[in-house]
């Protein structure tokens, strides 16, 4: 774990998932790491931009990496699976292909954008807190045991696959989330769909196919007796949380599964105030039972 990070919240945590941003800032303060803001960064160009305009994506990513470099931090911290894969992929291309780096920098210069020299590493919050001294540091701040809370980890795709671009852990048998859930004093629930897709990338264009995918993890986690699910990706969160009732309609059975961002789970265990974790911004609300088990620290008893 570093002492300072160039912090890249990405589109979702900046707009519709603001609770992820506030929780991340709060848990970082507990861990005593500094998050350096980069006010003029844009979307990383993931997904559709990457697909339809690959060169635009590469330049957008280069511009973000250049800004991260100028903060003086060695690592850009992301809290989104999709940003993680896309920024790492662009970074690898720029770092391993000098001609490509020169071409991109030349274009950036032509429009007066600072250039990138290839000196930044892109890492996800999950990786930083689930291993090494980051994990030790988290354990020392996880003072409120969430005993009795049964948590289903949901990894999502783009933090595991393709391993040659990510490579933090075995993509078929990951265990970083389980390690953190245990460190929170909670109980990790195992189920096969934890490494599968939430369907988000195609939920607007192919809702039926996407919901067919989304049903699986919700169903398996519910049947395995989970109280909540936790995910390191805001897109998975949006899909599992906001599209949950549509998935229930498709499955023909009710789901009432609160979905936590990773930073919210860590925050609850570290005693971050409920007002900062902002569970009110979820479509699927926490039940009283889950609120109790999360031992939400709420000085004015308002969740």
């Amino acid at each position: 774990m570093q002492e300072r990070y160039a912090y890249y919240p990405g589109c979702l945590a900046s707009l519709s998932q603001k609770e992820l941003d506030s929780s991340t800032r709060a848990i970082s303060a507990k861990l005593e790491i500094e998050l350096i803001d980069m006010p003029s960064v844009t979307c990383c160009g993931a997904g559709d931009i990457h697909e339809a305009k690959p060169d635009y994506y590469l330049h957008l990513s280069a511009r973000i990496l250049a800004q991260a470099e100028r903060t003086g931090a060695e690592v850009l911290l992301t809290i989104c699976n999709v940003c993680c894969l896309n920024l790492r992929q662009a970074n690898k291309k720029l770092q391993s292909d000098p001609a490509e780096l020169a071409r991109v920098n030349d274009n950036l210069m032509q429009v007066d954008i600072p250039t990138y020299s290839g000196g930044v590493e892109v890492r996800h919050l999950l990786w930083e807190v689930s291993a090494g001294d980051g994990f030790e540091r988290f354990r020392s701040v996880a003072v409120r045991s969430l005993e009795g809370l049964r948590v289903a980890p949901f990894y999502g795709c783009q933090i595991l696959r393709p391993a040659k671009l990510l490579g933090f852990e075995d993509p078929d048998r990951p265990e970083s989330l389980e390690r953190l859930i245990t460190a929170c004093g909670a109980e990790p629930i195992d189920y096969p769909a934890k490494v599968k897709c939430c369907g988000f990338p195609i939920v607007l264009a192919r809702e039926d196919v996407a919901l067919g995918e989304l049903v699986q993890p919700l169903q398996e986690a519910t049947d395995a007796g989970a109280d909540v699910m936790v995910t390191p990706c805001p897109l998975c969160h949006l899909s599992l949380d906001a599209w949950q009732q549509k998935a229930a309609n498709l499955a023909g059975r009710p789901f009432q599964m609160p979905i936590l961002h990773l930073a919210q789970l860590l925050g609850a265990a570290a005693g971050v105030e409920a007002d900062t974790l902002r569970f009110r911004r979820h479509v699927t609300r926490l039940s009283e039972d889950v609120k109790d088990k999360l031992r939400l620290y709420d000085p004015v008893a308002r969740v």
Partner: protein
Amino acid sequence: MATIDNEHLTTLKGAYDVQLMEVSLRVQRFGGEEDSRRRYETYTVEVPTTATLLDCLDAVKDKHDGSLAYRKSCRMAVCGSCGMRLDGGAVLACKVPMRPYVDAGHVVTVAPMGNLPVVKDLVVDMQPFWHKVRAVKPWLDTSDEAPPQTEWRVAPEQQEAISKESLCIMCGCCVSECNSMEADPDFLGPAALAKAYRFVGDVRDLDTRDRLRDLNGAHGIWDCTRCYFCNQRCPKGVDPRDAIAKLGAETFREGLHDGIQTLMTDEGARHAKVFIESTYKGGYLRETELVPKTIGPLGALKEIPFALQLARAGKVPNPLMPHKAKDNAEVKRLWKLLEQQTPRHQERALRPEDVTTAKGV
């Protein structure tokens, strides 16, 4: 004729220094139509320490149960016959050394590939797979173009553009865990789409637009949910998901620049277009714009209750005060510059007359 007795065998093993190990496998058995029960049998075999999963299955078949069914041919990761699941993920059985599992004391589970019907034990019916590959017209279409007098000339970098996709051995490993195919069995899927790009990206092929139009329809490229299982599984480095992304980029290149609106009617393509415009305007993705613009105004009306649910949770950014990244003008300049640089058409191969000229040089 001399018989080889056990003692002789031991001597031979010594001469070649063959070390043996014991491997245990849990194998899914399923007898086909007359047997509706799937069950697991565990076998333990003694094999050389260099043995692959396929070698172990051969030993099971030789020494324990001759009725065990699986496919194989080349034994060297070339023919694509031996795809199967090892601990839930598709592999080529002949490419996986078993030593690490033995060292870890782990008993592997072997099962047939997913997303294809099982015929018997580890054998799947590849018919749906071939059907989809055939559906993308896996051959070069040079239409009525006059045949070259000598040859079609392709520059090395033009060949390089489709070199990964040309490595496919049609094993089906990429299809096995494809998440979109689980939800939509008619999805063309990673292998067929990688094959499609192999021809869309081929400078000699003259059918690019028709191919792209077909691939943009139902069960086509916009069905892919980007789960990346295909890239993870492919034993030959084809990276089918990347090929699908290239088909998306080709769609945009052909569709936007030449105004072929028919290419851009797919909801997937429309979504991509709105996404790009949204980040162009504000630097960030603005979700409010995505729903109505992707699914059209009538579809959006149907979605009002859902949108209200999102709005109550504060998930819909204010459309009147769109969040803008600071210095967004930089990004607009960048976009304009890159648009000027984008080639309007794919550079085609040298035509026959060029070849004649080239020959004369």
